[in-house]
């Protein structure tokens, strides 16, 4: 019961984090910088949930992020599931549940999502409409800021999405 509750709770948390991110960046920098507050949620799913639950949760989060991003459909959903899997893979060799580990993973995941989005969009977009590599600087800043914001988000998620069962890291068992 608790396990299945986490997916809708993750969806709600995504909406809240998207809204908070949009509002905070507007307040602090007027949109000059961005922060992807929902990515630590994907990292949290990768660390704290099982493969099935986490993958579905990541897909739900991705769908909502796709809706919030307003870009081509499926891009962020795909990247979210990939990031979730990446976290599970990356978390296995070290203690990613520490605060520092969570922070680094969140920053890397954010950068990976940004980088992946730029790559895929450059691949599909027509010449001239494709995002430039200059966007990667902005992605890097976004990754750093998201990493900094990750610990408090994790603190909230730990209390909101009750940890039901910690499963061993790795994609397959």
């Amino acid at each position, binding site marked *: 019961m608790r396990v299945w509750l986490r997916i809708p709770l993750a969806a709600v948390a995504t909406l809240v984090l998207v809204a908070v991110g949009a509002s905070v960046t507007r*307040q602090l920098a007027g949109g000059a910088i961005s922060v992807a507050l929902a990515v630590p949620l994907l990292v949290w799913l990768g660390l704290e949930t099982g493969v*099935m639950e986490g993958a579905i949760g990541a897909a739900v989060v991705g769908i909502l992020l796709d809706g919030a991003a307003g870009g081509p*459909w499926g891009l962020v959903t795909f990247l979210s599931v990939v990031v979730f899997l990446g976290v599970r893979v990356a978390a296995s060799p070290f203690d990613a549940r520490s605060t520092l580990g969570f922070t680094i993973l969140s920053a890397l995941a954010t950068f990976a999502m940004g980088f992946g989005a730029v790559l895929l969009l450059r691949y599909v977009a027509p010449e001239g409409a494709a995002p430039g590599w200059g966007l990667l600087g902005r992605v890097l800043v976004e990754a750093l800021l998201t990493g900094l914001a990750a610990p408090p988000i994790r603190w909230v998620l730990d209390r909101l999405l009750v940890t039901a069962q910690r499963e061993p890291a790795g*994609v397959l068992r």
Partner: protein
Amino acid sequence: MFSLLRRYREVIVVAVLVVVPLGVFLAHARHPGDRTALDRFVLVATWPIEKGVDWAVTGVLEGWQRYVWLRGVENSARDLSRTVNELRAENAELSQLQAENERLSQLLLFVKSRPDVRAVGAKVIGTRMDPKGLQLVTIDRGSEDGIRKMMPVVTAAGVLGRVHTLTPHAADVLLLSDRNSSIAVRVERSRARANVRGQGAPGPCRLEYALRSDDLIEGDELVTSGTDGVFPRGLPVGVVHQVKRGGHGLYQASEVNPAVDVNRVEEVMVLVSADPPGAQPAAQAPAR
């Protein structure tokens, strides 16, 4: 078959979750359409949260700026305080000027209402109301301004006193509240005559020589009768305050509240062309 599916359930689900979005993306990325229902749902769902967060963040930031991060506020407050003090001083000065303007306007109106008299305006520059001595105020006009002894001194409210001592550029005015001052008056309502004598202190004067049979009630207004040789007729002197009729005697006694508050006089008019002060002062002879 089913056992195989069950065995690789996780792999299959994950693969579907990866491949389907990617396929959808690749299929539609080159032809982006309008916003879908889900886009609109996300917008609708996040809008109130954004608004709430915006309200909260704004509150926090404003609270921080207003109540915590007060660097430079002390200097600013000091500057503002100085400005406020300067403006207050300026305001006080302007208020004073306005009040003075009003008083002078009233004096002017008073003089204009009495075409039979010519007046010289003066400022009160000193007061001496020692209970052991005379009740005097000093004005900044003297004999060189055409002022002579015994000339009546008035304000817009009424009689203040008469010129007592003269110098070329200043004069002492004996107030109606002095014990040596006696002004012949008439009751405005009943035309009954009497004298108003000071009691040696700012405040109520005494009504003298009012016949017991005269019609006199509390609240009666008293004006100069013009019979004392000092004050022209019709200047307000005061209001009857307490009437005391004894069981016997020729006169009735009363207190009079002067029309002029001698403690607050600042500008006065000396009536230089009123009846010449040749007659015996009322202080030395009753009006009747």
